[in-house]
Structures are given as C-alpha cells and as structure tokens.
C-alpha cells in the first residue's frame, strides 16, 4: 500500500504560503496513493509557471519543460512509451495562453494524458498579469483599466472539441479533487481537470472565499454522456460554479489506434537491420 508520504519530495517548495497550489498538490498525492501508482510509474510533464513547478514537489519522473509546451512533450513521451501514466501540471496561462493551440489539438488526438490545469485566473510567476481566464473587468498592474476581453472557458472549449473527460475541481475541495484526478487518470484518453485555485499574491477577485461561495457539486442526476447538458453546465450564466465531472465518454485513445503499439511500447522495440535492408534493396 502506498501512502501520500511515498510522494514526498525533499526539494523545498517555492509557493507562497496560503496558495491554492498546496491543496492541489495534496490531492494529487492522495489520488496517486489511492490508485496505487508508485512514483516510478508516473511521468509528470509541466510547462513553466507556478503550477508547472509542481512535479519538483512530488516524487515522480518529471519533465519541467517550456512555457506552454507541456502537452506536445507529454504527447511525444506517451507515444514513445504508452505504458507510462502521464500527467500534465499546467497553469491557465501555460495551457490556455501560450499553449492554447496544443490544448486544442491534444484533445483532437485524444492522447491518454490527464491534464491538471491549475486555474488561478492570473499569471502568478510573472507577478500578476491577466491570464486568459481572468474575469472581464479584473484590474491588475498591467491591466489597470481592467481586463477588456472575454474570459476563456476551458470546459466549453474542451467539450466543443470532443474531449472525452471534462471536469472541474477546486483546490479547496481536496477529497473531491482527489477523486476527480483518480477518475481522470483511469479515463483512457485525454482528460481535462480544470482546477480553480486562489492565488493569494495576485488575484484579489477570485479568493478562496469567493470560490467557496460559488462552487457547488454537479447535481447527481447530471448525465455525463450528454454533451449538450455538459455544455449547458459549462456555459451556465448564473453565479454558481459546478464542480465534478461534466462529461465522460471513452473512445480509443491515440496510442490505442496505432496498430504497431498493440504489442509493446515503441521504446521496447529492437533495432532490426533486416527490415531496413529490405527497404534499401527495394
């Protein structure tokens, strides 16, 4: 039996005291322990940002890559060795800003990775500029007159792209979040968990309390396979923010669709000169 301690990293944490990232980190540990996935079976890929530092603070294999590029790195790694459990720790700027194009196309590929998008509505590491998910009107040092563009709705976009697993968590609801992460990892295919997370240093609008007042678990009778129902939830216009699984529907993941990956991962193939000789003598 694995416990959350098995994921403890000695590397000192960099986050601000009170940051929502800690809740996400705890939920990740408990989810991994819950699934019995030992550190050496896990690869966590991240971009750049506060969220993207996560894999340093856990025991795991880690690729802390470039701002915005976690998903293509994860995609390449998963194709090379689809026996790995691949998680992506990313921020709202990382995933929906710089990495927006990869976000869309990773969903189209249905690559079997679980994306934990630490959505704090702000660029934390670069000190508080608006992010794609910042609410309209939010003032920052860089946007002193308030944000004038519409907020990015990751769930609606993922749904419209055909994502098979779309969920929303909140860093302040650890148990629920741990369950969502477990469900996301278990889902064979692309899984998005957009996690609402207060940034105590820079986001003065979406505070812990602000979220607490708004998050509500999705109603029991919600049909996870009904795409339009999921879109309605995601586009919902009242104040409430439903948390839980919006949509879940499996279809073969990218690596499941490639015949030559049926037997074993690409990494496990041997170099076979005879194959090349056949081509060279063609």
């Amino acid at each position, binding site marked *: 039996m694995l416990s959350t301690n098995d994921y403890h990293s000695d590397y000192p944490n960099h986050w601000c005291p009170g940051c929502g990232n800690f809740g996400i980190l705890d939920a990740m540990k408990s989810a991994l322990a819950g699934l019995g996935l030992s550190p050496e079976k896990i690869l966590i890929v991240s971009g750049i940002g506060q969220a993207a530092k996560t894999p340093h603070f856990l025991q795991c294999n880690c690729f802390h890559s470039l701002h915005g590029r976690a998903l293509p790195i994860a995609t390449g790694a998963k194709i090379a060795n689809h026996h790995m459990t691949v998680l992506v720790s990313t921020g709202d700027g990382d995933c929906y800003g710089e990495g927006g194009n990869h976000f869309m196309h990773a969903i189209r590929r249905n690559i079997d990775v679980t994306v934990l998008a630490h959505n704090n509505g702000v660029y934390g590491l670069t000190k508080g500029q608006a992010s794609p998910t910042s609410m309209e009107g939010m003032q920052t040092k860089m946007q002193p007159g308030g944000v004038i563009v519409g907020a990015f709705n990751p769930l609606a976009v993922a749904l419209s792209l055909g994502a098979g697993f779309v969920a929303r968590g909140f860093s302040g609801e650890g148990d629920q979040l741990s369950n969502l992460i477990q469900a996301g990892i278990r889902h064979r295919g692309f899984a998005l968990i957009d996690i609402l997370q207060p940034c105590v240093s820079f986001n003065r609008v979406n505070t812990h309390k602000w979220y607490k007042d708004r998050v509500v678990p999705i109603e029991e009778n919600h049909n996870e396979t009904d795409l339009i129902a999921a879109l309605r939830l995601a586009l919902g216009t009242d104040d409430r923010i439903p948390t839980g699984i919006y949509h879940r529907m499996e279809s073969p993941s990218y690596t499941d669709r490639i015949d030559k990956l049926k037997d074993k991962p690409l990494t496990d193939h041997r170099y076979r000169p005879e194959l090349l000789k056949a*081509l060279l003598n063609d």
Partner: protein
Amino acid sequence: MTVDISVLIGGEAGQGIQTIGLLMARTCHRAGLYVMVINDFESRIRGGHSFIQLRISDRPVHGPTRKLHMVVALDERTYGLHQPELTEGGLVLISKDHADTMAQHHRYKMVDFGGVAKKAGSSILANTVAAGTSLALLGAPFDLFENILKSTFNQVEEKRLAQNIQAAQYGYTAAEDETFKWSWPWAVTSPKGRLVDGAQAVAFGALAGDCRFSAFYPMSPATGIIQHLVDMAQTVPLVIEQAEDEIAAVNMVIGAAFAGVRAMTATSGGGFSLMSEGLGLAAITETPIVIVNAQRPGPATGLPTRTAQADLQFVIHASQDEFPRFVFAPGTPFEAFSVTARAFELSERFQVPAIILMDQYLNDSLFVAEESFEAPETVTSYTAADDLENPVGYRRYAFTDSGISPRALPCKGPALVKVCSDEHDEEGHITEDADTRDAMVAKRFAKVAAMRKEIRPPEVIHAGSDILLVSWGSMRGAMEEAVNQLRADDINCGGVHVVDLWPFPDTALSEILEKVTQFFVVEQNQSAQLGQLIRQQTGCQYTDAVLKYNGRPMSAGEITDAIKTKLR
C-alpha cells in the same frame, strides 16, 4: 565518346513533367548511365511554368549544367522561354503546332503527344509518349524503356501497363523521321548504384540511425523527407505524427526522445525559426534530437519551392544563450544518408541536439549514388536504464569529466528521472545557485572536446593547388566539377568540401587554407556565410566569394566563369 546530355522538360504544374523525367531517368540509370533530375517548380499545383532538367552522362555527374541539348516543351511558354537556351544544334520537341509563333533558329519537332496518347488509349498517356519520343531520339533501345515501364507500372492493372507500352511504342515511332545530333549508341551495362533523391537518403539514414518517432508540420522542401519516412513506416517500428505546428512538432520529438526513442523532425527555415526555443530545451535538458532544416530562400515565405544555403549562421546560433550542438550539411545523397545516421548516434551519445542542413536542390533532385547504403548490424544505445547501481541516488545531471551524465529513462526502472528547462542541479531540480550554474554550463561545454573529435575534416580534392574553392553542403557536386573544368583550363585549382560544420573544424581548415595563396568560397547565399565563419574561427580571409541566391542551383559553369573573372 563521352556522353553529357541535358534535356529540359517543361510545362505547366500538373502536366506531369516529373513523370517524363522519372521514366527517362530510370531508363538511363538502368542502362548503366549516370543521370540527374533537377526540379524547377513554382509554388502552385496547376498552371504556371515549371520544368525539370535531366542530365545524362557516362561519367558521374553531381550538379546542374547550363548546356541544354534538348527541350521537351509541353506548352508554348516552355518553347519561348527555353528555346533560346539551347546549344547550337539542339532540338525542341513540342506537343502542338506553334510553328507560326516560333523563332526558327533552332530545330524543332512537333509531336501531338496528346493525340498520339489517345490513340494508345487515353490522353493521360501523353507523358509516356513524350518520354518515348525523347528516348528514341537519344538512341535508347526500346526494350530497355519497356522494362522500365513494366517495373514502374507493376502495381497497376495489366491493361494500363499495356496501354503505356503502346504509348511508348507510338512515341518511338514519332521519332523515326528525326535525328538528334548527340544521339549515341547505348551500351547497356548494369546500373551504377542507386537512383535516389536527398530526401529519401535522409529517410534511409534516419532508419539506419534507428529513428522511431517523427513529428512534423508540412513545409516545402522538407515534406519529401517525411513522405519517404511515411512510405517506409509501414514495415518498421516508426510512428509519425503530423503536428498542429512546428512548435508542437519539435516538442513532441523532445518528449519522445526523453522517454527513450530516437526521434527527429524536418522542416524548412520558417519552421526552424519556430523550433528555436525547443532547440534550447533539448540543449538544457540534454535530450538528443535530430532536426533537419531543408533550406529554401527567404526571408519569411520567400521562394517556397526553391533552393538556398542561407541558414548556416542562423542554425549555429539559434536559440537564446549558448550550448553545444552538431551541425552537418551533406553534399550528396550518400552523405545525407550517412550523416543522418551519424547525427542520431552522435546526438544520443553526447546528449545534444543535432541539426542537418539540407536544401531544396539536394532534397528534391535525383542523383545516381554509387556508394552502397548499408544498414548497420547494430545500433548502440547510450541510455543507462538497466545498469544503474544506485537508483535511489540517481541524478540525471551528475557531474562527470566528460560532461555526459548517465541517462536513465522515465518509467523504465526504479530511478526517477527529472529534467528541467530552468538551470538545474545534478538531480534535475531548479537551482538559483551561482556555482551550480557555472558548473552546469561547464558540464555542457565539457562535451565539446570529444564532440570535436567526431567532426570529420573537410574533404580536399587536388590538395597542393595554388587556389582552392571552398564550399559546403549541396554545392559539392558543382564545385568539384568546376574545379575540374578550371584545371582543364590550366588553372591550378583544388576544392574543399565541408560537411561537418559545427563544432567548427577550425584546425583542419586552417591547415588547408594557410597553405594556399587564394581561396574562394562558393555558396548559395548573399553574405558568404561559410566565408565569415572561416574568418571568425580560423582568421583566414577568403579572397572572394562566388554567390548565388535566386533560388536556382548554381552550376559548375557559373562557378568557373565567376572564378575566371575574379582571377583576371
């Protein structure tokens, strides 16, 4: 007698000039002749004006020529544009009667390719007719051509093959009342090596380097490389993914390489620009990747379907800050093959990115490669997955004398592998420490000494000459031909060909260049980039430069003319 014949086949994009060229090239190759096919295509799918140049010789040929002996004009425009380029006594084959509009100083022969083709069964056979007439005029035995048709169309229904043979026959018949001045008696021998383009040679090289994954975004002239990989991927453990953009492509390749397979991408300058940041990621994480930059003229979109050698300085310096990398620029398909395989091996061995500079001319042109393309019996793996003695204490960036740290793979054993694009400590964690930073920079650069040893010195022909022509990459063929022409004209001239460009072969080049009184760089760019590098790295100053940058490959004749002018 010496054969060195050049045939231009021109028409609109989509008319199938490439088919004609390929059929003729295969026929010549099968006969034991040397042959080249060089494309001059516009960036469009139909219409406009495109042509190919077919050079046929009984001696090895490795570059374009300005001499033109026959023009096969599928449209009037081809006649108008290329008839004036014909050598005295040359012949134009034209598909229709444009006699009225044509100047009369060259002989021409009209063949109603389309009409004849219809007689053979379908107007789409016009290309076979044209190839037949052309080959007949060159003196090629019909059964040779017939065999080529049989092997070319061996996958299609018998009826289509029969029609093609019929069309070829009609084409031959149409040539009967005409003679071609340079026709020669074909002594069919066995083929000299392989008919191959640079793109396919790179693809072969990738497989010989055990490439398992490739991600790409289509971009001329790099797409051909990936197309060849895709065609070959049916039988080998190679996965190819078309990415949403070049940034995704290079990062997928990095991800795959990190996870343990050899991986590459191919693009052209615009895509390479977008990959610059990823190149730096590969460098700081010490992940081995291979990037092919098939050069074309820029800036920006430039001339998408044409050739250039103008990205040398860019790829050497691309990406913020500094790090070791390999840069190679093969000059022939065989070099492309072997350099690509080496790039995979060296990149993995040293855990550094390797860049291969190709260009449109080398990528798309067909050459006869006489060297044999050998699949290596084994491919060494430099990863350390199985024999880590102390997995718990594993440090991905452990300091070593060589600068190379044991490279374990993620999820392949008990060792946890952590890599990071921030400056990091030995474990792969972010560091802010000044000493660790210094040590990590030193570690990465410590590899350079051993990398240098892998750099093969430039090849010299006619060493000991007074004058040297120095070129790199695809200029090899034309440069060497020019050297021989100049020597034939009593100019005491030799040639230097650089393939391994970075780490720069400074000692080897200094030794070569310090001996001569004059040397000229020959390059397809505006600023003599190799010349500049030579000056920077060796202190030797080139006498002058022969440069061309309008997207068309430079011929030996252009080089000799330029050199003679400069020597005067």
